[in-house]
């Protein structure tokens, strides 16, 4: 067991420390890149609803980055008497805030797109003067969107999705997932603008609607994941696809102890680490406290995510606890 004790382990093994440093660098890179993107799109956004929606999506995509960096400041803090479980939930709260923001703005944008389509608003895209040449602004929009897509799809999206499983960080995973899906937004906005170019005015609104539905879907998924984790569903993998296999590892370790007759575990996700309550039914109804502390220490050693471990002797296993079978 590490020097930080049974609860609130905040030190990370070397692999995770490297991953955290790398994640922070990528988040800062993303913020800088996205800020430049937002500024460049601002120059060409014009009256196109699709461009406006893509532009707002870019602004929204900054929220997860800031949430991650802010949460990181908190999760490093040791538990205290005031916060006996540490501050790991900051990550989940950041996730929830990002999800709700996406959902709210996505709905707003979808309504704007639909009302624009119903009112048959024809988007007006004129020309710009560039180096003495008069150029249709639509071409510039297409060019800008085609260039800015490079960052999320080829650089920081894949990089973050490699780091997310290492750190068991759902916020980072969701962020990477959205970045990788950013090409859909780009393609939609380009289709919308080119549609306007050839006189199909409704393609702009349709593209805007498509993009905003994507934002709503992202918002819904993130909100759902964040809420169920904050409501202490049993710990699942970083992509929330299946129950986390560590629960079964803990139970099988406990069963291998000679003094244990039966074992089960309640394990919840604190955002990046797990809070574990292991229940054991000892043989002959007796157990030594030294065995209990030794077992807790060994469980904490199985994986760096095992944080806050308690082993509780019981007469009978609680029904809700995971027996790993």
């Amino acid at each position, binding site marked *: 067991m590490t020097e930080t004790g049974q609860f609130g382990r905040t030190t990370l093994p070397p692999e995770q420390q490297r991953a955290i440093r790398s994640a922070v660098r990528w988040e800062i890179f993303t913020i800088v890149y996205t800020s430049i993107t937002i500024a460049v799109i601002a120059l060409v956004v014009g009256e196109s609803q699709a461009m406006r929606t893509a532009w707002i999506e870019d602004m929204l995509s900054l929220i997860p980055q800031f949430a991650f960096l802010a949460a990181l400041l908190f999760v490093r803090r040791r538990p205290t008497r005031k916060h006996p479980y540490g501050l790991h939930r900051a990550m989940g709260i950041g996730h929830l805030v990002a999800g709700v923001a996406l959902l709210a703005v996505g709905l707003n944008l979808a309504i704007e797109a639909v009302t624009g389509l119903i009112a048959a608003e*024809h988007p007006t895209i*004129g020309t710009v003067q560039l180096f003495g040449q008069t150029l*249709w602004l*639509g071409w510039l929009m297409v060019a800008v969107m085609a260039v800015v897509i490079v960052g999320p799809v080829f650089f920081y999206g894949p990089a973050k999705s490699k780091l997310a499983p290492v750190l068991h960080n759902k916020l980072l995973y969701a962020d990477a997932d959205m970045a990788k899906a950013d090409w859909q937004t780009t393609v939609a906005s380009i289709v919308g603008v080119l549609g306007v170019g050839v006189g199909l005015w409704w393609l702009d609104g349709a593209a805007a609607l498509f993009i905003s539905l994507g934002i709503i879907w992202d918002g819904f998924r993130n909100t759902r994941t964040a809420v169920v984790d904050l409501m202490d569903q049993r710990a699942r993998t970083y992509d929330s696809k299946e129950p986390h296999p560590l629960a079964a590892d803990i139970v099988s370790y406990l069963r291998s102890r000679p003094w244990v007759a039966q074992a089960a575990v309640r394990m919840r996700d604190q955002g990046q680490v797990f809070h574990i309550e292991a229940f054991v039914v000892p043989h002959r109804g007796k157990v030594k406290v030294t065995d209990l502390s030794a077992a807790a220490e060994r469980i904490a050693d199985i994986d760096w995510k095992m944080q806050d471990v308690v082993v509780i002797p019981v007469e009978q296993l609680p029904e809700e606890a995971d027996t790993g079978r």
Partner: protein
Amino acid sequence: MLSLSGCGLAVPADPDGTLETVSGGELRVGTAPDGDLVRIEDGEPTGSIVDLVDGFASRIHAETDWTVASEETLVSMLEDGDLDLVAGGITSETPWVDKAGVTRGYRGIEGADGREIVMLVPLGENAFLSSLERFLDEEVGG
């Protein structure tokens, strides 16, 4: 202007075909008196804006048909398709952005006293708007 001539498509295009309709035909222009930009003498508009619009009309081989009314009436007529263009003492601060397509602002127009003058076209008639802006770029600069 770049165009996708290979596909028989011109970009940008007008959803309602304004440029095609007015070219070689009639350009219906609305205006309101404003200092030296637009003066009304015997019901006929004259002034630097009027000269500019007449110049644009001859570029696209059109005849101008002028309507003189208040700006609000002109914008309603533009929305209803009774006008193709509204020109006068309208600046880039215009509140009509939701009801009309607005050209870029032009400072170099005689009699504008440094105001950035814009013109209004029907919403989304992007070929017409682009051809007007191209003409204004050549005549009065950006």
